[in-house]
């Protein structure tokens, strides 16, 4: 227990500091601090609807964070989560609309196929970077970002252009039929099966990284890639980690499409990849901690949104709070005497 507490304390401090900053911001920037504060801190819990919305929005975030955890554990700096989620949205929407129209297919099959397609799309994008690094040494950190950026532009073009639903004012693909979506758990709230699915993914990730042989090999590679090669571990472990990482980001994209929105909308990933990365870093690349961290981030997002609707605060305040938490945590953890880069569960990036 004490070991766990040692690990948890800097994280709790950092998150507490973020909340303190939120308090200060609401007090200073709002003309009605009382309303702003209650909207920010309590708004997301004010009704079953808002709470369910918070849970639903945590699902894609958690999936991306789990992907980042696996990549970081393997020492692969996958900065392309945003783009991997983006191609996931497109793949899920394409498969769901193609199969959703086919008569006789059970909805569960349509949804599963769409999620698998999204995972495959995200995996492929991430795998390109992993393979490039293995063969040429081109840094995953750079290629994953660049390929993601190109992919986002291409997906946005496809959704807003040739695939766009011309009968709608939205830059979006046509809405999916009811049977091709993740079922709602507590209508009319947006809470769908995406949330329990993300919990299942978290359980699988934790089991995989902590209790399987491949998982420990991946962790070993992250700690020391040369040693991993020397003792005969496969050079393709990095590929596997990136594949899983991109796949999870792709699934996050499918949550966005098959859940609340029920369609692919241009730009709908809206930073979920970057936020997932931040969640993973705050969680110390540990899938177990990723769940509370993702819920915390979702709370900050929901609180910012609520306080921008009900009071006069900026909906983007949450990004500032997240960044502050991240700054504090990287300083704190290094300050506690651990070696540099331990936060990533692997080697430091600065070489």
């Amino acid at each position, binding site marked *: 227990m004490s070991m766990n507490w040692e690990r948890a304390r800097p994280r709790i401090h950092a998150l507490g500091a973020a909340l303190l900053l939120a308090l200060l911001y609401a007090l200073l920037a709002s003309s009605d601090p009382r309303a702003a504060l209650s909207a920010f801190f309590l708004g997301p819990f004010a009704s079953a609807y808002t709470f369910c919305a918070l849970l639903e929005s945590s699902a894609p975030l958690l999936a991306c964070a789990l992907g980042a955890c696996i990549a970081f554990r393997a020492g692969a700096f996958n900065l392309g989560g945003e783009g991997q989620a983006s191609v996931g949205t497109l793949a899920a929407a394409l498969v769901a609309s193609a199969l959703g129209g086919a008569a006789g297919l059970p909805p569960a099959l349509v949804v599963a196929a769409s999620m698998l397609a999204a995972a495959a799309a995200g995996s492929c994008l991430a795998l390109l970077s992993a393979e490039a690094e293995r063969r040429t040494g*081109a*840094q995953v950190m750079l290629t994953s970002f660049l390929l993601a950026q190109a992919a986002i532009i291409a997906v946005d073009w496809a959704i807003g252009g040739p695939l766009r639903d011309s009968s709608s004012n939205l830059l979006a693909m046509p809405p999916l039929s009811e049977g091709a979506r993740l079922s709602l758990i507590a209508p009319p709230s947006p809470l769908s099966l995406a949330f329990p699915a993300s919990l299942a993914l978290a359980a699988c990730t934790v089991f995989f990284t902590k209790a399987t042989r491949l998982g420990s090999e991946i962790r070993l590679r992250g700690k020391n890639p040369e040693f991993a090669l020397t003792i005969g571990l496969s050079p393709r472990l990095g590929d596997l980690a990136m594949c899983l990482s991109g796949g999870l980001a792709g699934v996050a994209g499918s949550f966005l499409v098959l859940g609340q929105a029920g369609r692919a909308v241009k730009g709908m990933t809206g930073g979920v990849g970057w936020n997932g990365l931040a969640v993973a870093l705050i969680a110390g690349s540990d899938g177990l901690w990723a769940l509370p961290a993702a819920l915390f981030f979702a709370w900050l997002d929901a609180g910012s949104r609520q306080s921008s609707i009900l009071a006069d605060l900026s909906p983007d305040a949450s990004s500032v709070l997240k960044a502050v938490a*991240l*700054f504090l945590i990287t300083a704190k953890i290094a300050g506690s005497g651990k070696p540099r880069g331990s*936060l990533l569960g692997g080697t430091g990036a*600065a070489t």
Partner: protein
Amino acid sequence: MILERLTSLGISTLASAAPLALAALGGLAAAASGSLSIALEGSMLVGAFTAAAVGHATGSAAAGMAAGAFAGLLLSLLVGGAAVGLKADVFVAGLAANILAPGIVSVASQAAYGTKGVLAAEALRSGQWEIIALLASASLALALFLSRSVFGLRLRVAGEGDEIAAAAGIRSGAYRLAAHLIAGAASGLAGAALAAGIGAYVPGMTSGRGWIALVAVFLGGRRPGGVALACLLFGLLFALSNLVQGFGGQGASSGAELLQAVPYAVTALALVAWKGAERRRKAGG
């Protein structure tokens, strides 16, 4: 006709390459000191916004540009301060800065102007040649400073590792922090130039240019000349994709929008090709 087209392509290449080059040379300073400047993108973004805000408020383009550089420097102070002073992971601190930048810009814009959208600043708008000249001379000065000055030499010694630096009587931490500040100011000014080019701040207007600058640092073999050359290449890519977009006409369905993806994909390919050639060279010799 052809000549005109070529000239305009050349100018457009320079206009795209100049901000990349300045930011990349800033990134080179950090790389030379043995650190990593992930936050170039964030510094460019706060630089662009601050330049527009100050340009709008003071009516002076020069004040706007200076403020943009200063804002970039402040953001890099957070990164460098955390990394050097608090022994934070520079990669994580840089990512935090990149998440912070769009957030704080949006919050500031909301507080000051009641909008988080486009911020017009006609006073900031400057001529294409003025901007290119400013950025090119700043880049040249920075390149010379890094390669010829005593400071630049000490920076590179600091980059060789703490022990070597200590043996040479150099406090590597201080130089690393200075290198981060240089990177921040350079990319802040580069971002300010982007805003000056259109006389406005547009959310997301840097769109990954800071990352491309970082790639240029690696592609340029960590030498100023090489970095500048890599930036010219990337500038040409941006110029070409703009040019072809112009031919294709407007509208999302025309595919013109898709061309914006080309510079990023080609940059990735260039990095892979370069690294592959480097590995083969090493294996051969």
